């Protein structure tokens, strides 16, 4: 994707908002339009300079530092005496052949896909439901946002207590139906399911809000025409709502993918990735290597992190492409 393409995309977006109007004409600049424009360029970059410097220092540099960590052999001592031998791809090879790699890959995939499927379908069902605009629908829809706004640590601790084996409300509810004690967080069969359930709960509001705004952009006339043709609610959903919502759906799902790959707090608080590595994802694995013990193993941790970033960016670029296509450019 070239810079000019991006630029024309954002210009089209500006027009799409019906606000930008014609290009700014400097009224008094008839004599030297070029110099004027050049001055505008300088002013533009002057205003953007703080963010550019910021991006270089606080995004680019940590990323470079992270790459360096992964290609060298860093120990705590390296930070004191400043020596870290170059290790090439050794850290990556060590990570790929580690016993945790296969389960971490599987868990990351399962965690992400199952979360997305449920967040999206429940979010869409709720968006369609709230779109019926019944009394109180606005207030209730706003209340649905609460789980998304809470600090993740708060939600995660609440879920861990609810899922506690002995005293959790979930198990006592199941007991009422004659289901015996389930070790949600401490058994390898259930730990991943538990963190997925909590993550779905947190992700529903986000999907609901975006899909709801997508529903608002479907013209009312289409539904009226379908009603005249005798379509029922089910047909209207599958023939009108779902197809017309497809661009918004694509964006919701892709953004969900990027966000879900990053999830750390929930899993760390609820299970710490355990028992064993039964709920360890790449983000958890990286953290555990780097900060989980008294002696940080930063180099392999950085290698795992860089694998994660590659996956995230692949979906990220697909997302950006999808978003561009959504814009009429």
């Amino acid at each position: 994707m070239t810079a000019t393409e991006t630029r024309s995309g954002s210009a089209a977006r500006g027009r799409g908002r019906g606000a930008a109007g014609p290009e700014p004409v400097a009224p008094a600049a008839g004599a030297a339009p070029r110099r004027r424009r050049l001055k505008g360029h300088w002013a533009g970059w002057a205003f953007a300079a703080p963010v550019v410097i910021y991006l270089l220092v606080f995004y680019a540099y940590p990323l470079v530092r992270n790459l360096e960590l992964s290609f060298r052999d860093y120990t705590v001592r390296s930070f004191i005496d400043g020596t870290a031998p170059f290790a090439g791809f050794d850290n990556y090879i060590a990570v790929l052949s580690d016993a945790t790699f296969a389960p971490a890959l599987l868990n990351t995939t399962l965690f992400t896909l199952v979360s997305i499927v449920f967040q999206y379908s429940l979010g869409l069902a709720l968006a369609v439901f709230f779109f019926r605009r019944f009394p109180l629908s606005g207030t209730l829809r706003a209340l649905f946002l609460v789980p998304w706004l809470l600090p993740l640590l708060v939600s995660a601790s609440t879920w861990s207590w609810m899922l506690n084996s002995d005293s959790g409300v979930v198990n006592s509810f199941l007991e009422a139906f004659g289901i015996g004690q389930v070790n949600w967080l401490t058994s390898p069969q259930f730990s991943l399911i538990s963190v997925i359930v909590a993550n779905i709960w947190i992700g529903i509001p986000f999907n609901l809000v975006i899909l709801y705004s997508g529903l608002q952009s479907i013209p009312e006339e289409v539904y009226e025409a379908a009603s005249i043709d005798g379509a029922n609610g089910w047909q209207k959903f599958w023939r009108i709502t779902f197809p017309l919502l497809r661009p918004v759906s694509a964006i919701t799902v892709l953004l969900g993918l990027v966000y879900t790959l990053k999830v750390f707090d929930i899993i760390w608080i609820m299970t710490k990735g355990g028992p064993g590595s039964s709920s360890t994802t790449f983000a958890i694995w990286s953290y555990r290597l780097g900060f989980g013990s008294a002696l940080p193993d930063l180099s392999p941790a950085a290698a795992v992190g860089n694998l994660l970033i590659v996956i995230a960016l692949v979906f990220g670029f697909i997302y950006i492409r999808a978003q561009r296509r959504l814009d009429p450019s």
Partner: protein
Amino acid sequence: MTTTRRRWFDTVIGLVLTGIMLFPIYWMINVSLTKSGAMRQDPPSLFPFDPTFEGYEAVLSQQLPFLGTSFVIGIGTVVLTVVLSAPAAYALAKLRMPGGGALSFVLLVAQMIPGIIMAMGFYAIYLNLGILNSIPGLILADSTLAVPFGVLIFTAFMSGIPNELLNAAKIDGAGNWRTFRSIVLPVSRNSIVTVSLFAFLWSWSDFLFASTLDGGGSLQPITMGIYRYIGNNNQEWNAIMATAVVASIPAAVLLVVAQRYVAAGVTAGAVKD
């Protein structure tokens, strides 16, 4: 008549669904009011019939420094985010310099970098600089959660400001800086509110940077307060949940005071139409 009834029937379903969705939050409040002795009771009491405030007393006596630290870090992040992102957005939306598209693209990608990677990079840098376990260090790290988002929101908003308004200022002899300060900023008040709210909330909620960059500091944010609680005294769940309730207050305030900004922020971050 029948449609009215159907509409109210929808409301009932809506209430039930909201109840299910918010049950964990209700449970958090319920547990925070439960006596320590009744914590392991089976089945647990569904209502705090016999409420106790011992959990909240523990918050008052032990967690105030953490809350204060979080507040300071939150305000610092808000200021840094707005100061950095508003001028950049003005440049992208109105000055339209060449290469601006590339800058927006970089900002979009920056939002997708997993936090754990940023944390690792910051850790290595802070270790060398000796600013681990410090509040300014944490403010800087937390601002990376909000700056790209801030620029995107401000840009979306500022491209909606009519050019006539800016040109009128130019005719009156105002330079770019003057125009930005006296016209663009006041007109963008709503978007400043949106960006500030989210920047505050995200830095308030941050745990990853806090635990990696401020794991051993004397001043730690509230998320670390809860985390330490969970690690130290597994039995005092009323105190843990009371802290959780208190830590949720900014989110609640935000929802009540600025509901429309929240929805706007969520959608603007994802779909810019």
